[in-house]
Protein backbone atom coordinates (compact mmCIF):
# COMPACT_ATOMS: atom_id res chain seq x y z
CA UNK A 1 0.00 0.00 0.00
CA UNK A 2 2.69 2.43 1.10
CA UNK A 3 4.94 1.18 -1.67
CA UNK A 4 2.22 1.70 -4.28
CA UNK A 5 1.50 5.17 -3.05
CA UNK A 6 5.13 6.13 -3.10
CA UNK A 7 5.62 4.99 -6.67
CA UNK A 8 2.52 6.96 -7.69
CA UNK A 9 4.15 10.05 -6.12
CA UNK A 10 7.32 9.43 -8.13
CA UNK A 11 5.36 8.96 -11.34
CA UNK A 12 3.45 12.21 -10.87
CA UNK A 13 6.62 14.08 -9.98
CA UNK A 14 8.55 12.77 -12.95
CA UNK A 15 5.62 13.70 -15.19
CA UNK A 16 5.63 17.22 -13.73
CA UNK A 17 9.38 17.47 -14.22
CA UNK A 18 9.05 16.58 -17.90
CA UNK A 19 6.43 19.32 -18.33
CA UNK A 20 8.37 21.92 -16.34
CA UNK A 21 11.81 21.21 -17.79
CA UNK A 22 10.67 20.47 -21.35
CA UNK A 23 10.65 24.14 -22.38
CA UNK A 24 14.28 24.52 -21.24
CA UNK A 25 15.20 21.48 -23.31
CA UNK A 26 13.52 22.93 -26.40
CA UNK A 27 15.23 26.27 -25.89
CA UNK A 28 18.64 24.60 -25.74
CA UNK A 29 17.75 22.31 -28.63
CA UNK A 30 16.80 25.27 -30.84
CA UNK A 31 19.96 27.13 -29.84
CA UNK A 32 22.08 24.24 -31.12
CA UNK A 33 20.36 23.86 -34.49
CA UNK A 34 21.79 25.16 -37.72
CA UNK A 35 19.69 28.02 -39.19
CA UNK A 36 18.25 25.96 -42.05
CA UNK A 37 17.22 23.18 -39.66
CA UNK A 38 14.59 25.52 -38.25
CA UNK A 39 12.75 25.31 -41.54
CA UNK A 40 13.11 21.53 -41.81
CA UNK A 41 9.91 19.53 -42.13
CA UNK A 42 9.12 17.43 -40.27
CA UNK A 43 10.53 19.18 -37.21
CA UNK A 44 13.97 17.93 -36.19
CA UNK A 45 13.76 16.82 -32.58
CA UNK A 46 17.52 16.88 -32.24
CA UNK A 47 19.97 19.11 -34.08
CA UNK A 48 21.64 16.93 -36.71
CA UNK A 49 24.89 18.83 -36.52
CA UNK A 50 24.86 20.51 -33.12
CA UNK A 51 27.27 23.39 -32.97
CA UNK A 52 27.86 26.46 -30.90
CA UNK A 53 28.01 28.97 -33.75
CA UNK A 54 24.56 30.35 -32.84
CA UNK A 55 25.96 31.46 -29.53
CA UNK A 56 28.83 33.23 -31.24
CA UNK A 57 26.44 34.87 -33.72
CA UNK A 58 24.02 35.85 -30.97
CA UNK A 59 26.86 37.72 -29.27
CA UNK A 60 27.79 39.64 -32.40
CA UNK A 61 24.43 40.16 -34.16
CA UNK A 62 23.55 42.68 -31.48
CA UNK A 63 26.04 44.32 -29.12
CA UNK A 64 25.28 41.58 -26.63
CA UNK A 65 27.97 42.42 -24.11
CA UNK A 66 27.06 46.09 -24.26
CA UNK A 67 23.41 45.40 -23.46
CA UNK A 68 24.38 42.83 -20.85
CA UNK A 69 26.59 45.48 -19.25
CA UNK A 70 23.66 47.92 -19.19
CA UNK A 71 21.47 45.28 -17.54
CA UNK A 72 24.20 44.39 -15.09
CA UNK A 73 24.81 48.03 -14.16
CA UNK A 74 21.16 48.82 -13.54
CA UNK A 75 20.49 45.58 -11.68
CA UNK A 76 23.59 45.84 -9.47
CA UNK A 77 23.14 49.51 -8.61
CA UNK A 78 19.46 49.04 -7.87
CA UNK A 79 19.94 45.80 -5.89
CA UNK A 80 22.64 47.22 -3.62
CA UNK A 81 20.86 50.52 -2.98
CA UNK A 82 17.40 49.06 -2.51
CA UNK A 83 18.67 46.42 -0.10
CA UNK A 84 20.43 48.95 2.10
CA UNK A 85 17.53 51.42 1.94
CA UNK A 86 14.96 48.71 2.67
CA UNK A 87 16.96 47.41 5.63
CA UNK A 88 17.22 51.00 6.88
CA UNK A 89 13.48 51.60 6.68
CA UNK A 90 12.66 48.10 7.88
CA UNK A 91 14.63 48.75 11.04
CA UNK A 92 12.58 51.85 11.74
CA UNK A 93 9.28 50.01 11.28
CA UNK A 94 10.41 47.07 13.40
CA UNK A 95 12.20 48.74 16.27
CA UNK A 96 11.20 52.35 16.66
CA UNK A 97 7.99 54.06 17.48
CA UNK A 98 6.54 57.45 16.69
CA UNK A 99 3.18 59.08 16.26
CA UNK A 100 1.92 58.45 12.75
CA UNK A 101 3.86 55.24 12.36
CA UNK A 102 0.77 53.12 11.87
CA UNK A 103 -0.45 55.42 9.12
CA UNK A 104 2.93 55.37 7.36
CA UNK A 105 3.02 51.61 7.64
CA UNK A 106 -0.47 51.21 6.21
CA UNK A 107 0.47 53.46 3.30
CA UNK A 108 3.54 51.29 2.75
CA UNK A 109 1.44 48.13 2.67
CA UNK A 110 -1.18 49.57 0.36
CA UNK A 111 1.40 50.71 -2.18
CA UNK A 112 2.06 47.03 -2.81
CA UNK A 113 -1.37 46.91 -4.44
CA UNK A 114 -0.69 49.74 -6.88
CA UNK A 115 -0.23 48.65 -10.46
CA UNK A 116 3.37 49.65 -11.16
CA UNK A 117 2.43 51.01 -14.55
CA UNK A 118 -0.02 53.51 -13.05
CA UNK A 119 2.88 55.48 -11.61
CA UNK A 120 5.22 54.62 -14.45
CA UNK A 121 3.44 56.69 -17.10
CA UNK A 122 3.59 59.98 -15.17
CA UNK A 123 7.04 59.05 -13.85
CA UNK A 124 8.19 58.73 -17.44
CA UNK A 125 6.80 62.18 -18.27
CA UNK A 126 8.37 63.57 -15.10
CA UNK A 127 11.82 62.11 -15.84
CA UNK A 128 11.57 63.23 -19.44
CA UNK A 129 11.01 66.81 -18.24
CA UNK A 130 14.02 66.53 -15.91
CA UNK A 131 16.12 65.07 -18.76
CA UNK A 132 16.67 61.89 -16.79
CA UNK A 133 15.48 59.48 -19.46
CA UNK A 134 18.31 57.55 -21.13
CA UNK A 135 20.23 57.75 -17.86
CA UNK A 136 20.30 55.28 -14.98
CA UNK A 137 19.42 57.96 -12.42
CA UNK A 138 15.81 56.69 -12.07
CA UNK A 139 17.12 53.33 -10.83
CA UNK A 140 19.37 55.10 -8.34
CA UNK A 141 16.40 57.11 -7.06
CA UNK A 142 14.14 54.06 -6.91
CA UNK A 143 16.90 52.19 -5.10
CA UNK A 144 17.46 54.91 -2.50
CA UNK A 145 13.79 54.82 -1.49
CA UNK A 146 13.67 51.10 -0.81
CA UNK A 147 10.93 48.78 -1.99
CA UNK A 148 7.81 48.14 0.12
CA UNK A 149 8.04 44.37 -0.20
CA UNK A 150 11.68 44.30 0.90
CA UNK A 151 11.03 46.77 3.71
CA UNK A 152 8.32 44.41 4.90
CA UNK A 153 10.78 41.50 4.69
CA UNK A 154 13.41 43.28 6.78
CA UNK A 155 10.82 44.52 9.23
CA UNK A 156 9.61 40.97 9.85
CA UNK A 157 13.15 39.80 10.43
CA UNK A 158 14.18 42.65 12.70
CA UNK A 159 10.95 42.37 14.73
CA UNK A 160 11.91 38.88 15.79
CA UNK A 161 15.35 39.75 17.11
CA UNK A 162 15.71 39.76 20.90
CA UNK A 163 15.37 43.03 22.78
CA UNK A 164 18.54 42.37 24.74
CA UNK A 165 20.56 43.07 21.61
CA UNK A 166 19.82 46.76 21.68
CA UNK A 167 19.36 47.17 25.40
CA UNK A 168 23.00 46.51 26.08
CA UNK A 169 23.98 48.86 23.28
CA UNK A 170 21.78 51.66 24.60
CA UNK A 171 23.33 51.32 28.04
CA UNK A 172 26.72 51.61 26.36
CA UNK A 173 25.49 54.83 24.78
CA UNK A 174 24.99 53.68 21.21
CA UNK A 175 22.67 55.71 18.99
CA UNK A 176 20.02 54.05 16.87
CA UNK A 177 22.07 54.39 13.69
CA UNK A 178 25.00 52.58 15.26
CA UNK A 179 22.71 49.92 16.67
CA UNK A 180 21.28 49.36 13.20
CA UNK A 181 24.62 49.40 11.44
CA UNK A 182 26.73 47.49 13.91
CA UNK A 183 24.28 45.08 15.52
CA UNK A 184 21.15 44.48 13.46
CA UNK A 185 22.42 44.70 9.90
CA UNK A 186 25.30 42.21 10.36
CA UNK A 187 22.82 39.73 11.85
CA UNK A 188 20.48 39.90 8.91
CA UNK A 189 22.58 38.42 6.12
CA UNK A 190 19.93 35.82 5.13
CA UNK A 191 17.48 38.66 4.41
CA UNK A 192 20.19 40.73 2.77
CA UNK A 193 20.98 37.83 0.46
CA UNK A 194 17.30 37.25 -0.35
CA UNK A 195 16.77 40.94 -0.98
CA UNK A 196 19.83 41.25 -3.21
CA UNK A 197 18.81 38.27 -5.29
CA UNK A 198 15.17 39.29 -5.59
CA UNK A 199 15.88 42.88 -6.52
CA UNK A 200 18.65 41.90 -8.91
CA UNK A 201 16.44 39.47 -10.76
CA UNK A 202 13.48 41.90 -10.84
CA UNK A 203 15.63 44.44 -12.60
CA UNK A 204 17.41 41.91 -14.79
CA UNK A 205 13.99 40.62 -15.87
CA UNK A 206 12.14 43.94 -16.04
CA UNK A 207 10.87 44.93 -19.45
CA UNK A 208 8.47 47.82 -18.99
CA UNK A 209 10.62 50.38 -17.18
CA UNK A 210 13.67 50.14 -19.49
CA UNK A 211 11.44 50.02 -22.58
CA UNK A 212 9.81 53.23 -21.39
CA UNK A 213 12.79 55.15 -20.07
CA UNK A 214 15.78 54.09 -22.17
CA UNK A 215 16.60 54.50 -25.85
CA UNK A 216 18.14 51.83 -28.03
CA UNK A 217 21.72 52.55 -26.94
CA UNK A 218 21.03 52.54 -23.20
CA UNK A 219 18.45 49.80 -23.05
CA UNK A 220 18.80 46.43 -21.34
CA UNK A 221 19.26 42.91 -22.61
CA UNK A 222 15.66 42.05 -21.72
CA UNK A 223 14.36 44.69 -24.12
CA UNK A 224 16.87 44.12 -26.90
CA UNK A 225 16.47 40.36 -26.77
CA UNK A 226 12.77 40.69 -27.47
CA UNK A 227 13.20 42.41 -30.81
CA UNK A 228 16.91 42.51 -31.70
CA UNK A 229 17.34 39.24 -33.60
CA UNK A 230 16.03 39.83 -37.12
CA UNK A 231 17.61 39.42 -40.53
CA UNK A 232 17.86 42.15 -43.15
CA UNK A 233 14.25 41.49 -44.20
CA UNK A 234 12.98 41.85 -40.67
CA UNK A 235 12.09 38.22 -40.12
CA UNK A 236 13.08 36.80 -36.75
CA UNK A 237 16.14 34.56 -36.39
CA UNK A 238 14.78 31.84 -34.14
CA UNK A 239 18.00 30.06 -33.31
CA UNK A 240 19.83 33.28 -32.44
CA UNK A 241 16.87 34.24 -30.23
CA UNK A 242 17.19 30.85 -28.54
CA UNK A 243 20.95 31.18 -28.07
CA UNK A 244 20.58 34.73 -26.79
CA UNK A 245 17.79 33.68 -24.44
CA UNK A 246 19.88 30.81 -23.06
CA UNK A 247 22.71 33.19 -22.24
CA UNK A 248 20.23 35.63 -20.72
CA UNK A 249 18.42 33.09 -18.55
CA UNK A 250 21.32 30.88 -17.46
CA UNK A 251 23.03 33.44 -15.16
CA UNK A 252 19.76 33.93 -13.26
CA UNK A 253 19.20 30.18 -12.99
CA UNK A 254 22.81 29.60 -11.92
CA UNK A 255 22.54 32.28 -9.24
CA UNK A 256 19.32 30.71 -8.04
CA UNK A 257 20.80 27.20 -7.94
CA UNK A 258 23.77 28.41 -5.92
CA UNK A 259 21.68 30.12 -3.28
CA UNK A 260 18.46 28.13 -3.54
CA UNK A 261 18.48 26.61 -0.06
CA UNK A 262 18.29 29.83 1.86
CA UNK A 263 16.38 31.59 -0.89
CA UNK A 264 13.46 29.19 -1.11
CA UNK A 265 13.03 29.35 2.64
CA UNK A 266 13.20 33.14 2.49
CA UNK A 267 10.63 33.48 -0.28
CA UNK A 268 8.32 30.93 1.28
CA UNK A 269 8.24 32.51 4.70
CA UNK A 270 8.57 36.16 3.77
CA UNK A 271 5.01 37.10 2.98
CA UNK A 272 3.33 34.73 5.31
CA UNK A 273 4.47 35.08 8.84
Amino acid sequence: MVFRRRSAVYMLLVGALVLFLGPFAWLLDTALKAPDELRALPVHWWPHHPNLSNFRDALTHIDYFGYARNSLTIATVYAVLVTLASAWAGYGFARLHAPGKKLVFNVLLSTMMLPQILTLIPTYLLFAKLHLTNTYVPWVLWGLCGAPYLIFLFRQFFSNMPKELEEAAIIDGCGQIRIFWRIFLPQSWPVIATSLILSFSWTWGDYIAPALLLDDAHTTLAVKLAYGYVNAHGSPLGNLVAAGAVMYVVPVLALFLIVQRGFVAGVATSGLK
Partner: protein
Amino acid sequence: MSTGQITAPGAPSPSGEAAARPGPRTGAHSARGRRSLSSRRALSFYVFAGPWVLGFLALTAFPLGYALWLSLTNADGLSDNSRFVGLDNYREVFTDPETMSSLARTGIFTAITVPLTLAAGLLLAILVNQPIRARGVFRTLLYLPAVVPPVGAALTFKLIFDRDSGAANGALDALNLDGISWLMDPYARWVLVTLTLWGAGNAMIVSLAGLQDVPKELYEAARIDGANTWQSFSRITLPLLSPVLFFQVITGIIAAVQSFLPLLISLDPTPRGVTAVPEGNYLFMIHVFAQYFANGRYGYASAMLWVLFLIIVAITFLVFKLSKGAVFYAVDPEPDKQSRPRTLGGK
Protein backbone atom coordinates in the same frame (compact mmCIF):
# COMPACT_ATOMS: atom_id res chain seq x y z
CA MET B 1 12.26 33.93 11.32
CA SER B 2 9.22 31.90 12.26
CA THR B 3 7.04 33.29 14.97
CA GLY B 4 4.33 30.70 14.65
CA GLN B 5 1.85 33.42 13.86
CA ILE B 6 0.07 33.16 10.57
CA THR B 7 -1.35 36.39 9.33
CA ALA B 8 -2.46 37.57 5.98
CA PRO B 9 -0.11 40.29 4.81
CA GLY B 10 -1.62 43.21 3.06
CA ALA B 11 -4.66 43.00 5.28
CA PRO B 12 -6.26 46.40 5.80
CA SER B 13 -5.40 46.26 9.43
CA PRO B 14 -2.14 44.34 9.50
CA SER B 15 -0.55 42.94 12.57
CA GLY B 16 2.06 45.61 12.04
CA GLU B 17 1.60 47.48 15.26
CA ALA B 18 1.47 44.39 17.33
CA ALA B 19 4.62 42.70 16.10
CA ALA B 20 6.68 45.83 16.31
CA ARG B 21 6.59 46.49 19.97
CA PRO B 22 8.10 49.73 21.04
CA GLY B 23 11.71 49.33 21.90
CA PRO B 24 13.04 48.66 25.32
CA ARG B 25 12.56 51.11 28.06
CA THR B 26 15.62 52.15 29.92
CA GLY B 27 15.78 53.36 33.43
CA ALA B 28 14.10 56.71 32.76
CA HIS B 29 11.41 56.75 35.40
CA SER B 30 10.41 60.38 35.60
CA ALA B 31 7.72 61.52 33.20
CA ARG B 32 10.02 64.13 31.78
CA GLY B 33 12.82 61.69 31.15
CA ARG B 34 10.41 59.39 29.42
CA ARG B 35 9.08 62.13 27.22
CA SER B 36 12.48 63.24 26.01
CA LEU B 37 13.46 59.65 25.42
CA SER B 38 10.30 58.92 23.47
CA SER B 39 10.62 62.06 21.38
CA ARG B 40 14.20 61.10 20.56
CA ARG B 41 12.90 57.69 19.64
CA ALA B 42 10.16 59.26 17.51
CA LEU B 43 12.74 61.37 15.78
CA SER B 44 14.90 58.36 15.04
CA PHE B 45 11.86 56.56 13.60
CA TYR B 46 11.53 59.36 11.09
CA VAL B 47 15.24 59.28 10.37
CA PHE B 48 14.83 55.64 9.40
CA ALA B 49 11.46 55.86 7.66
CA GLY B 50 12.30 59.23 6.12
CA PRO B 51 13.96 58.11 2.89
CA TRP B 52 11.05 55.87 2.07
CA VAL B 53 8.52 58.57 2.94
CA LEU B 54 10.33 61.10 0.76
CA GLY B 55 10.65 58.58 -2.03
CA PHE B 56 6.99 57.73 -1.70
CA LEU B 57 6.01 61.37 -1.93
CA ALA B 58 8.26 62.10 -4.91
CA LEU B 59 8.10 58.85 -6.85
CA THR B 60 4.69 57.47 -5.96
CA ALA B 61 2.33 60.07 -4.51
CA PHE B 62 3.32 62.85 -6.88
CA PRO B 63 3.15 60.65 -9.99
CA LEU B 64 -0.20 59.32 -8.75
CA GLY B 65 -1.54 62.83 -8.42
CA TYR B 66 -0.14 63.61 -11.82
CA ALA B 67 -1.79 60.47 -13.21
CA LEU B 68 -5.08 61.58 -11.68
CA TRP B 69 -4.70 64.97 -13.33
CA LEU B 70 -3.73 63.37 -16.65
CA SER B 71 -6.79 61.16 -16.51
CA LEU B 72 -8.93 64.30 -16.47
CA THR B 73 -7.25 65.77 -19.55
CA ASN B 74 -6.81 64.82 -23.17
CA ALA B 75 -2.98 64.81 -22.88
CA ASP B 76 -1.27 63.07 -25.77
CA GLY B 77 2.39 63.84 -25.07
CA LEU B 78 2.76 65.62 -28.40
CA SER B 79 0.92 68.88 -28.17
CA ASP B 80 1.37 71.12 -25.16
CA ASN B 81 -2.18 72.37 -25.19
CA SER B 82 -3.79 69.46 -23.40
CA ARG B 83 -6.96 70.58 -21.78
CA PHE B 84 -9.19 69.56 -18.93
CA VAL B 85 -11.95 67.27 -20.10
CA GLY B 86 -13.49 66.34 -16.77
CA LEU B 87 -14.72 62.79 -16.50
CA ASP B 88 -14.85 62.23 -20.25
CA ASN B 89 -12.05 59.66 -20.15
CA TYR B 90 -13.77 57.73 -17.39
CA ARG B 91 -17.05 57.84 -19.28
CA GLU B 92 -15.21 56.45 -22.28
CA VAL B 93 -13.68 53.63 -20.23
CA PHE B 94 -17.14 52.36 -19.41
CA THR B 95 -18.66 52.91 -22.84
CA ASP B 96 -15.81 51.88 -25.17
CA PRO B 97 -16.71 48.31 -26.19
CA GLU B 98 -13.04 47.47 -26.81
CA THR B 99 -12.06 48.55 -23.30
CA MET B 100 -14.94 46.66 -21.75
CA SER B 101 -14.24 43.47 -23.71
CA SER B 102 -10.54 43.60 -22.80
CA LEU B 103 -11.59 43.99 -19.18
CA ALA B 104 -13.94 41.02 -19.43
CA ARG B 105 -11.19 38.96 -21.07
CA THR B 106 -8.85 39.88 -18.21
CA GLY B 107 -11.52 38.71 -15.77
CA ILE B 108 -11.79 35.37 -17.53
CA PHE B 109 -8.00 35.01 -17.71
CA THR B 110 -7.82 35.67 -13.96
CA ALA B 111 -10.68 33.31 -13.19
CA ILE B 112 -8.89 30.54 -15.11
CA THR B 113 -5.26 31.03 -14.09
CA VAL B 114 -5.60 31.85 -10.38
CA PRO B 115 -7.46 28.67 -9.36
CA LEU B 116 -5.41 26.49 -11.74
CA THR B 117 -2.12 27.86 -10.41
CA LEU B 118 -3.34 27.46 -6.84
CA ALA B 119 -4.40 23.85 -7.45
CA ALA B 120 -1.24 22.94 -9.37
CA GLY B 121 0.94 24.56 -6.71
CA LEU B 122 -0.89 22.76 -3.91
CA LEU B 123 -0.69 19.39 -5.66
CA LEU B 124 3.04 19.81 -6.32
CA ALA B 125 3.60 20.98 -2.75
CA ILE B 126 1.88 17.88 -1.38
CA LEU B 127 3.96 15.69 -3.69
CA VAL B 128 7.30 17.24 -2.75
CA ASN B 129 6.34 17.12 0.93
CA GLN B 130 6.18 13.30 0.85
CA PRO B 131 9.02 11.34 2.40
CA ILE B 132 10.71 10.47 -0.88
CA ARG B 133 14.24 10.41 -2.19
CA ALA B 134 15.76 13.54 -3.73
CA ARG B 135 12.78 15.68 -2.86
CA GLY B 136 15.09 18.68 -2.53
CA VAL B 137 16.05 18.18 -6.16
CA PHE B 138 12.40 17.91 -7.19
CA ARG B 139 11.55 21.11 -5.29
CA THR B 140 14.38 23.03 -6.89
CA LEU B 141 13.74 21.85 -10.44
CA LEU B 142 9.98 22.47 -10.27
CA TYR B 143 10.61 25.97 -8.93
CA LEU B 144 13.15 26.73 -11.64
CA PRO B 145 10.71 28.08 -14.30
CA ALA B 146 9.39 30.62 -11.79
CA VAL B 147 12.87 32.18 -11.77
CA VAL B 148 12.98 32.70 -15.55
CA PRO B 149 12.58 36.40 -16.44
CA PRO B 150 9.27 37.08 -18.29
CA VAL B 151 10.99 37.95 -21.55
CA GLY B 152 12.97 34.70 -21.47
CA ALA B 153 9.82 32.70 -20.71
CA ALA B 154 7.85 34.39 -23.48
CA LEU B 155 10.62 33.80 -26.04
CA THR B 156 10.85 30.16 -25.01
CA PHE B 157 7.12 29.64 -25.48
CA LYS B 158 7.24 31.42 -28.81
CA LEU B 159 9.83 28.87 -29.96
CA ILE B 160 7.83 25.90 -28.66
CA PHE B 161 4.59 27.01 -30.27
CA ASP B 162 6.11 28.30 -33.49
CA ARG B 163 3.97 27.36 -36.49
CA ASP B 164 6.81 25.75 -38.46
CA SER B 165 9.70 24.89 -36.17
CA GLY B 166 7.99 24.46 -32.80
CA ALA B 167 7.93 21.33 -30.68
CA ALA B 168 4.14 21.44 -30.29
CA ASN B 169 3.51 21.06 -33.99
CA GLY B 170 6.39 18.60 -34.23
CA ALA B 171 4.49 16.39 -31.79
CA LEU B 172 1.25 16.79 -33.74
CA ASP B 173 3.08 15.92 -36.93
CA ALA B 174 4.49 12.78 -35.35
CA LEU B 175 0.89 11.78 -34.64
CA ASN B 176 -0.01 12.52 -38.27
CA LEU B 177 -2.10 15.53 -37.25
CA ASP B 178 -2.06 18.90 -38.95
CA GLY B 179 -0.03 21.70 -37.40
CA ILE B 180 -1.81 24.51 -35.58
CA SER B 181 -1.12 28.25 -35.56
CA TRP B 182 -0.78 28.26 -31.79
CA LEU B 183 0.11 31.91 -31.44
CA MET B 184 -3.08 33.03 -33.15
CA ASP B 185 -6.75 32.81 -32.28
CA PRO B 186 -8.34 30.71 -30.95
CA TYR B 187 -5.34 28.91 -29.47
CA ALA B 188 -3.21 31.85 -28.36
CA ARG B 189 -5.12 32.22 -25.09
CA TRP B 190 -4.23 28.66 -24.11
CA VAL B 191 -0.57 29.28 -24.84
CA LEU B 192 -0.85 32.24 -22.49
CA VAL B 193 -2.52 30.13 -19.79
CA THR B 194 0.14 27.42 -20.19
CA LEU B 195 2.90 29.99 -19.94
CA THR B 196 1.35 31.38 -16.77
CA LEU B 197 1.01 27.90 -15.27
CA TRP B 198 4.67 27.20 -16.05
CA GLY B 199 5.49 29.43 -13.08
CA ALA B 200 3.35 27.40 -10.64
CA GLY B 201 6.54 26.57 -8.75
CA ASN B 202 6.05 29.82 -6.89
CA ALA B 203 2.67 28.69 -5.60
CA MET B 204 4.25 25.32 -4.77
CA ILE B 205 6.91 26.90 -2.56
CA VAL B 206 4.42 29.07 -0.71
CA SER B 207 2.02 26.17 -0.13
CA LEU B 208 4.92 23.95 0.91
CA ALA B 209 5.90 26.43 3.61
CA GLY B 210 2.30 26.28 4.84
CA LEU B 211 2.21 22.48 4.76
CA GLN B 212 5.36 22.25 6.82
CA ASP B 213 3.71 24.24 9.59
CA VAL B 214 0.87 21.75 9.96
CA PRO B 215 1.57 19.77 13.14
CA LYS B 216 2.21 16.08 12.33
CA GLU B 217 0.39 14.97 15.49
CA LEU B 218 -2.90 16.09 13.98
CA TYR B 219 -2.57 13.55 11.17
CA GLU B 220 -1.63 10.81 13.60
CA ALA B 221 -4.60 11.59 15.80
CA ALA B 222 -6.88 11.60 12.76
CA ARG B 223 -5.51 8.26 11.60
CA ILE B 224 -6.12 6.72 14.99
CA ASP B 225 -9.66 8.02 14.80
CA GLY B 226 -10.02 6.19 11.51
CA ALA B 227 -9.91 9.11 9.09
CA ASN B 228 -8.97 8.30 5.51
CA THR B 229 -6.59 10.32 3.35
CA TRP B 230 -9.31 12.52 1.88
CA GLN B 231 -10.81 13.22 5.30
CA SER B 232 -7.52 14.29 6.82
CA PHE B 233 -6.82 16.41 3.75
CA SER B 234 -10.16 18.21 3.82
CA ARG B 235 -10.47 18.45 7.61
CA ILE B 236 -6.88 19.19 8.59
CA THR B 237 -4.72 20.23 5.67
CA LEU B 238 -7.13 22.57 3.92
CA PRO B 239 -8.33 24.52 6.97
CA LEU B 240 -4.82 24.95 8.34
CA LEU B 241 -3.57 25.92 4.91
CA SER B 242 -6.41 28.37 4.24
CA PRO B 243 -4.52 31.55 5.26
CA VAL B 244 -1.69 30.59 2.89
CA LEU B 245 -4.14 29.82 0.08
CA PHE B 246 -6.00 33.04 0.78
CA PHE B 247 -2.76 35.00 0.54
CA GLN B 248 -2.09 33.38 -2.83
CA VAL B 249 -5.57 34.14 -4.13
CA ILE B 250 -5.16 37.83 -3.29
CA THR B 251 -1.65 38.20 -4.71
CA GLY B 252 -2.58 35.98 -7.66
CA ILE B 253 -5.55 38.16 -8.62
CA ILE B 254 -3.50 41.35 -8.27
CA ALA B 255 -0.79 39.91 -10.51
CA ALA B 256 -3.18 38.39 -13.07
CA VAL B 257 -5.22 41.53 -13.75
CA GLN B 258 -1.95 43.35 -14.42
CA SER B 259 -0.52 40.68 -16.70
CA PHE B 260 1.16 41.98 -19.81
CA LEU B 261 2.66 38.66 -20.93
CA PRO B 262 0.68 38.77 -24.23
CA LEU B 263 2.71 41.85 -25.09
CA LEU B 264 5.92 39.88 -24.76
CA ILE B 265 4.60 36.85 -26.66
CA SER B 266 3.39 39.03 -29.52
CA LEU B 267 6.31 41.40 -29.58
CA ASP B 268 7.23 42.32 -33.11
CA PRO B 269 10.90 42.33 -34.06
CA THR B 270 10.83 46.07 -34.53
CA PRO B 271 11.81 48.49 -31.81
CA ARG B 272 8.97 49.06 -29.39
CA GLY B 273 6.50 47.58 -31.80
CA VAL B 274 3.76 45.16 -30.99
CA THR B 275 2.32 43.00 -33.71
CA ALA B 276 -1.37 42.58 -33.54
CA VAL B 277 -2.06 40.76 -30.30
CA PRO B 278 -4.56 37.97 -31.02
CA GLU B 279 -8.00 38.96 -29.84
CA GLY B 280 -8.08 36.16 -27.28
CA ASN B 281 -5.02 37.62 -25.58
CA TYR B 282 -6.02 41.25 -25.86
CA LEU B 283 -6.09 41.82 -22.11
CA PHE B 284 -6.78 45.11 -20.35
CA MET B 285 -3.08 45.88 -19.87
CA ILE B 286 -2.46 45.37 -23.59
CA HIS B 287 -5.23 47.82 -24.37
CA VAL B 288 -3.58 50.30 -21.98
CA PHE B 289 -0.25 49.87 -23.79
CA ALA B 290 -1.89 50.22 -27.17
CA GLN B 291 -3.63 53.45 -26.16
CA TYR B 292 -0.50 54.75 -24.50
CA PHE B 293 2.26 53.80 -26.94
CA ALA B 294 0.48 53.53 -30.24
CA ASN B 295 -2.07 56.30 -29.83
CA GLY B 296 -0.25 58.45 -27.28
CA ARG B 297 -3.45 58.83 -25.30
CA TYR B 298 -1.84 59.46 -21.89
CA GLY B 299 -5.04 60.81 -20.43
CA TYR B 300 -7.20 57.91 -21.46
CA ALA B 301 -4.54 55.31 -20.50
CA SER B 302 -4.27 56.92 -17.05
CA ALA B 303 -8.05 56.79 -16.59
CA MET B 304 -8.02 53.11 -17.53
CA LEU B 305 -5.30 52.41 -14.98
CA TRP B 306 -7.17 54.24 -12.25
CA VAL B 307 -10.23 52.15 -13.00
CA LEU B 308 -8.06 49.02 -12.84
CA PHE B 309 -6.64 50.10 -9.49
CA LEU B 310 -10.11 50.69 -8.05
CA ILE B 311 -11.16 47.28 -9.33
CA ILE B 312 -8.15 45.69 -7.61
CA VAL B 313 -9.04 47.41 -4.35
CA ALA B 314 -12.69 46.36 -4.67
CA ILE B 315 -11.81 42.73 -5.44
CA THR B 316 -9.33 42.57 -2.56
CA PHE B 317 -11.97 43.96 -0.22
CA LEU B 318 -14.56 41.52 -1.54
CA VAL B 319 -12.26 38.51 -1.19
CA PHE B 320 -11.53 39.58 2.38
CA LYS B 321 -15.24 39.79 3.15
CA LEU B 322 -16.18 36.56 1.41
CA SER B 323 -13.38 34.59 3.02
CA LYS B 324 -14.23 35.62 6.57
CA GLY B 325 -15.75 32.27 7.40
CA ALA B 326 -13.50 30.18 5.18
CA VAL B 327 -10.10 31.30 6.34
CA PHE B 328 -9.10 29.70 9.56
CA TYR B 329 -6.38 31.21 11.66
CA ALA B 330 -4.67 28.78 13.97
CA VAL B 331 -3.33 31.69 15.94
CA ASP B 332 -4.96 35.03 16.55
CA PRO B 333 -3.82 37.15 13.58
CA GLU B 334 -3.30 40.08 15.90
CA PRO B 335 -1.17 38.64 18.63
CA ASP B 336 0.30 40.43 21.61
CA LYS B 337 -2.63 42.81 21.76
CA GLN B 338 -2.85 42.52 25.50
CA SER B 339 0.84 42.91 26.02
CA ARG B 340 0.95 46.41 24.59
CA PRO B 341 2.40 48.84 27.09
CA ARG B 342 -0.28 50.71 28.97
CA THR B 343 1.45 54.02 28.43
CA LEU B 344 0.32 53.92 24.81
CA GLY B 345 -3.32 54.55 25.55
CA GLY B 346 -4.19 51.09 26.83
CA LYS B 347 -7.45 50.57 28.69
